[in-house]
């Protein structure tokens, strides 16, 4: 028996496959958090500055115009800022979820081939995907929470049920995140898909789905989308 054989325990005793079976996805999330920690300052700045600038320019700026012309119950019976707030919350959740899911997937398959390293360990493909997804949702929850707090301080949240907007926004983020994770895994060889997606799908959705004006005003087609649902919780 060699020295190595005597001093080491060996994977047969060290590695607990049941534990990996149960918690594998969380170990993947943990590695995502290590990545996020690298630019934590950026994440925090973005989480604060992004809503702040939106709320100041669009909410307060344009809002004062809207409210001046239509009165303080100008849009859907609430001030413009109150109308706008929840929609921004949901779209932030959606955009955040997409970013946190698409980037690591591209990276994992193409740029540094992380996923191939993970795939050679006891982790399964499903656990890798779940791990990335869970980490993305944690990041989104953080961003949404900050957004919500800012909305609160801007006086945009009137109803007592406004906290529900967080949940609805999270659902929206979760839904888009899951969809994008599935797509990203499939089309990872086509980088350009994501620029198309950003420009022609996400951006128009954001602009024309009732974020900035009520959809029901413009068309008599009943529309239920995430923005409306989020708004429902707040108004």
């Amino acid at each position, binding site marked *: 028996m060699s020295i190595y054989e005597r001093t080491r325990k060996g994977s047969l005793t*060290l590695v607990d496959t049941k534990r990996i079976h149960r918690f594998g996805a969380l170990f993947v999330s943990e590695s995502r958090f290590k990545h996020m920690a690298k630019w934590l300052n950026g994440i925090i700045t973005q989480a604060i500055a992004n809503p702040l600038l939106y709320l100041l320019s669009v909410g307060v700026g344009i809002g004062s115009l809207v409210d001046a012309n239509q009165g303080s119950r100008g849009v859907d019976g609430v001030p413009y800022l109150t109308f706008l707030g929840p929609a921004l919350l949901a779209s932030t959740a959606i955009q955040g979820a997409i970013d946190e899911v698409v980037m690591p997937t591209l990276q994992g398959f193409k740029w540094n081939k992380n996923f191939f390293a993970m795939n050679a360990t006891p982790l399964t493909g499903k656990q890798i995907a779940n791990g990335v997804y869970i980490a993305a949702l944690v990041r989104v929850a953080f961003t949404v929470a900050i957004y919500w707090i800012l909305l609160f301080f801007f006086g945009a949240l009137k109803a007592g049920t406004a906290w529900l907007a967080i949940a609805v926004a999270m659902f929206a983020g979760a839904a888009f995140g899951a969809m994008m994770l599935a797509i990203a895994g499939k089309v990872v060889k086509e980088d350009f898909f994501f620029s198309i997606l950003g420009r022609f799908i996400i951006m128009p959705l954001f602009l024309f789905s009732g974020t900035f004006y009520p959809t029901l005003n413009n068309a008599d087609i009943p529309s239920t989308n995430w923005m409306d649902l989020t708004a429902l919780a707040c108004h």
Partner: protein
Amino acid sequence: MSSPLIVARQLTKTYGEFTAVDHIDFDVAKGESFGLLGPNGAGKSTTMRMIGATLQRTSGELTILGKDPEKLGPQIRAHLGVVPQQDNLDGELTVTENLYIYGRYFGLSKKFIKNKIEELLEFAQLEEKRNVKVDALSGGMKRRLTIARGLVSEPEILMLDEPTTGLDPQARHILWDRLFRLKELGVTLLLTTHFMDEAEQLCGRLIVMDKGKIMAEGSPAELIRKYSTKEVVELRFGSEKNAEMAEKLHDTCDHIEQLPDRILLYSDDGETLLSNIMSGGAHPITSLVRRTSLEDVFLKLTGRSLVE
């Protein structure tokens, strides 16, 4: 004797019409250091990926630690340390962070990994680089880190796919030294290479692969004994005259190989052969007597060089 850790029978992988691995048979026993030697495209990486339970075989039997990778992938991968042909470290994280997250993928405790990292940094000679981002490391350092990463879970089998390809000679020698240490420690090694000197230094036993098939199997010494002579005389007469001289010297030795730039004459006694040739009136521009190597075995088996 315990049963082999790896058993392959008629193992085959096809991509459409193309057969990358063609009905190969081999066993790897515990504590062995087993090599797959062959030129680019021989099917070495494909074989490694099937053993690593990340690529499905097309047909044949394969068991690793007594398990079928098709059915028990995670349970097999739990006991393998994998060093792929291309490093896939996380470039944005530091050296220790890379070791840490990889240990976590094996479900190891934070405390265990923390202690293990110290041992691995020492092994990989990366103590000074512990907090450096991996993107900033040299090729040789990255390779050592990938090997260290593969050892974090104290695997039953360490699999290395072309561990030193693309490294400069100095970096290669440092790596060989590390791998040799593992071999001495009794770690079961499975490695591929297209360098015959690497195979000779590191492999106790090896298979010679070409075009998906096994051409020969044995220890480096056995293979040389079986397929070649003890020594070889290398002669250069200039590219125009090589063919003509090869023809003339054909009967002086056991076997002759003609390469574009030189001819190789095989004999158990190179010095005597060379002096006979010289006294016979041949005037090579350069001459050299050397011990035969696996390169010569490969040349004999396939008529081609390992490294083109």
